[in-house]
């Protein structure tokens, strides 16, 4: 329905101008070029209005009920204790600090579970394609059993089995205890696992964290050293065709500085021992953490296994055959040819599995693990009655973490993307 205007005027040049058109309101509906924009604008306005209506309703009702959105409770003392604290905290600390303790616990279990879920997933996914009938059927069984039962059930099953099967600390007591420590140094109890903890008898710094940071710095240094060595080896290989053997040298770069540092600082081990009601000393990995960590990893691992299998199967069989005809052994075909290409298919769904782990970790309260949902969204919410405030913050937290994870993984994804030259 475009209307051309007649050519007016005396200049011949106007004849070659594109025909001008006037804009009429009806074109918003009738003209296909505008129609979709019109409808989108209408939808956006309706959406904004309904949000405004909901929010307005919320605030009006809050005001009518004499409630107001206020975060002042954040500074008040929390009054409750938390059993797993990565930072200093006691019942006199503020609700805000309790929330931070919860955040750190959420991040800890999510981080651990992402790592182990990836390991389980990759192993199960690769083995599921194995030519060995038993192995591949076993892996298929694992995948189907674990991903088809809700994760909450897994968390509770694992926790219940742990508390029922493992001995209580008091079983380790007495002259002829019913339970004994593994190698005299690790205790598996129904409250958690106690293992020897490292400490330094000649620390270089008074603050314990600094010593560990120093260790970390050494490891990072070794990492770059080993990488430089690898680069050099590649260069030599490109120039001469022979790759120098470097593994013992690389091992040295990793071990020598590290061991030296350990000797200088006097690495010692503190063993857990039964004192009073509980074991003390060493490192305690609490039962709730173990149950949650294990359940999340084994459950999500089943999904990742499927992603990995899909990724590998997406690679054309010709690739494998071509690699084999070059004389590569099957292991190398997998590592050098198939997996690098498969990763491109695997990474995007892997991101959503990592997000799932982080979000599913909010089921922690089922086993009494003090994550952010249990502290801020549980006890704090309950004791202060500030439901809206706490839930808003929780939403904000999970949103931020999820966006950060996917941003990070997207960067990684684009770094391994097919580089077209």
């Amino acid at each position, binding site marked *: 329905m475009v209307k051309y205007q007649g050519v007016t005027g005396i200049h011949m040049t106007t004849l070659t101008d594109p025909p001008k058109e006037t804009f009429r309101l009806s074109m918003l509906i009738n003209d296909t070029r505008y129609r979709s924009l019109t409808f989108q604008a209408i939808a956006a306005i309706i959406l904004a209005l309904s949000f405004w209506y909901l929010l307005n309703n919320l605030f009006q009702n809050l005001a009518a009920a004499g409630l107001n959105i206020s975060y002042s409770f954040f500074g008040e003392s929390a009054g409750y204790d938390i059993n797993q604290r990565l930072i200093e905290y006691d019942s006199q600390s503020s609700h805000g600090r309790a929330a931070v303790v919860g955040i750190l616990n959420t991040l800890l279990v999510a981080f651990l579970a992402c790592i182990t879920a990836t390991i389980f997933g990759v192993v199960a996914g690769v083995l599921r394609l194995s030519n060995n009938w038993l192995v591949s059927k076993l892996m298929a069984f694992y995948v189907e059993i674990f991903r088809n039962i809700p994760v909450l059930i897994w968390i509770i099953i694992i926790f219940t089995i742990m508390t029922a099967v493992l001995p209580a600390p008091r079983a380790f007591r007495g002259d002829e205890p019913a339970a004994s420590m593994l190698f005299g140094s690790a205790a598996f109890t129904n409250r958690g696992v106690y293992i020897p903890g490292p400490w330094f008898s000649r620390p270089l710094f008074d603050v314990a964290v600094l010593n560990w940071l120093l260790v970390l710095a050494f490891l990072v240094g070794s990492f770059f050293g080993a990488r430089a060595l690898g680069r050099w080896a590649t260069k030599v290989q490109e120039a001469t065709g022979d790759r120098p053997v470097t593994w013992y040298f690389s091992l040295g770069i990793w071990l020598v500085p590290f061991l030296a540092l350990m000797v200088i600082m006097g690495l010692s081990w503190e063993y857990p021992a039964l*004192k009073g*009601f509980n074991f003390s000393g060493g490192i305690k990995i609490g039962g709730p953490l173990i149950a949650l960590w294990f359940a999340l990893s084994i459950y999500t691992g089943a999904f990742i296994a499927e992603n990995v299998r899909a990724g590998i199967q997406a690679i054309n069989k010709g690739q494998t055959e071509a690699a084999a005809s070059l004389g590569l052994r099957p292991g190398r075909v997998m590592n050098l040819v198939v997996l690098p290409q498969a990763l491109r298919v695997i990474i995007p769904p892997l991101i959503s599995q990592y997000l799932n782990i982080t979000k599913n970790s909010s089921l922690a309260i089922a086993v009494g693990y003090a994550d952010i949902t249990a502290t801020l969204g549980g006890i704090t919410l309950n004791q202060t009655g500030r439901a809206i405030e706490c839930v808003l913050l929780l939403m904000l937290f999970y949103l931020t973490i999820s966006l950060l994870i996917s941003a990070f993984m997207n960067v990684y994804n684009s770094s391994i993307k097919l580089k077209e030259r």
Partner: protein
Amino acid sequence: MKKTFVLGALTVAGLAAGAAQAATVDDVKARGKLNCGVSTGLVGFAAPDANGNWGGFDVEMCRAVAAAVLGDSNAVEFVPTTGKTRFTALASGEVDLLARNTTWTFSRDVDLKFTFVGVNYYDGQGFMVPAELGVSSAKDLDGATVCIQTGTTTELNLADFFRVNGISYEPVPIETNAEAQQQYLAGACDVYTTDASGLAATRATFENPGEHVVLPEIISKEPLGPLVRHGDDNWGDIVRWTLNALITAEELGVTSANVAEMSGGTNNPEINRMLGTEGNLGEQLGLEADWAMKVISAVGNYGESFEKNIGENTPIGLARGLNALWTEGGLIYTPPFR
């Protein structure tokens, strides 16, 4: 789980205002059922039997209110709530009344905006430990692992008690009494702490109750009672005077056995006023004249309900103690029906 949580919170916000204005008693009558929040299962206080019928001391509070308002003590929808969910359930209007071992505290009254209509059990927080641990005082619990229900006054008292006494502990936060019991019996915690009445009720369900001792220390005051939302005083009055009728009936010797006879008229004017043969107290509450008669014939008086559910002849075996009538050296006392 998270979703219902968010929705719950939004409902609190969305409904709080509406609920405060509408008359709860009209809602209950229109619905023909009282929605009553109880615990998820604490024998003697609120627990379903093998046939799914709820019974217990708190449950009878619900039944009494249903009898007063609807004339039928079975017209109750019992809503099981945990320590964590109970206040959201009440604030959002999901329940009309909460009768769940709930302690009357300043912040619940003032900040959470609930009205406690009275106290039906004077309690305090205690500790239970396996006898084999050989612990004789709560002060010996340094380093112990303690099971607690979250969202309760218990966890706050516990933190205070250990801090003040300069000893340490490890909390195991648990949502329901049933889970806490399981953890405690498996030895995942050394100590279970909650209201002393709750400890007695929990211990009564153990296979060998004798293997567990309740320590002598009572570390807090826990006045337990039914509560309603702020803002509907008429409804608050109905629940308050239902509780008062139960207590006054015991004081005046009105029982489920003799209430029918007494409602024919007695020579005690207070009994007559309460049972509706004199004056118009029922009408003032917006109820039938014989509301209190229905309450007492349905659940008996306070003492009867106590003895039947948690008294010394039940497995729970609680003595009246502080919960005896004021005339017998206890704290149970009501204003007069006048």
